[in-house]
């Protein structure tokens, strides 16, 4: 799966597809519009070149070559000046209505797609932090289950003796990932 930024074309294609999926799976199409309107706002803000300390960057997880997202990923770049004060935050991963509906029915292929999408979002966001000149990625744990998963992820990251370059720590509801090497270079 590919992790990449939304543009107008992929946003509109995703909105159309998610609307039709909502109708097919008994969701409200208006709910889909509400779920995706932040992307429209972020694209409009980017087009008007408004700068802010908290810039919303719309990313999605796409099947290779597709312009319809399987999941949306809400990233926020917090910029308070210096590199050490610049963080990329992954706030939320939202699956398409079809994948969400099928996951609820415990469809294994849909669950597999969900896992791969979250994996692509995490790894993609970690990689993207460099493109946005940030040294830290923060993953938001919006509910208890996601926080438990993040604690487990942190434990595995920290027990890897071969690669100690990723430093993971828990800060409240956030799992914070950064490169130890970057940290050293910043000091």
């Amino acid at each position: 799966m590919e992790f990449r930024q939304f543009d107008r074309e992929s946003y509109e294609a995703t909105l159309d597809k998610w609307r039709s999926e909502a109708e097919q799976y008994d969701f409200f199409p208006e709910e889909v519009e509400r779920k995706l309107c932040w992307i429209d706002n972020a694209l409009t803000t980017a087009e008007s070149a408004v700068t802010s300390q908290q810039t919303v960057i719309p990313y999605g997880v796409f099947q290779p070559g597709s312009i319809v997202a399987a999941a949306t990923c809400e990233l926020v770049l917090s910029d308070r000046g210096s590199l050490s004060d610049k963080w990329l935050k992954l706030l939320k991963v939202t699956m398409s209505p079809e994948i969400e509906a099928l996951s609820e029915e415990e469809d294994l292929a849909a669950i597999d797609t969900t896992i791969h999408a979250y994996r692509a979002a995490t790894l993609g966001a970690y990689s993207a932090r460099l493109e946005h000149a940030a040294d830290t990625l923060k993953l938001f744990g919006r509910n208890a289950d996601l926080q438990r998963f993040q604690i487990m992820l942190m434990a595995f990251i920290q027990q890897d003796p071969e690669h100690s370059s990723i430093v993971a720590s828990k800060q409240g509801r956030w799992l914070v990932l950064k490169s130890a090497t970057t940290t050293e270079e910043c000091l």
Partner: protein
Amino acid sequence: MSTQHPTSAAFVRKMQQHSEELRCLARAFDQAVLAFEPQKLAAALREEKVAS
């Protein structure tokens, strides 16, 4: 500026190091998913429903 480490070599080294970090993170992620059970992670990512 040192001539022993041209910018391109430094960049390649940085990218190699970054790829290693990503591989490490990928492995950690897979282990965490297995330990947590994929269904639980899928449920955690689902939109929370508001009871009517």
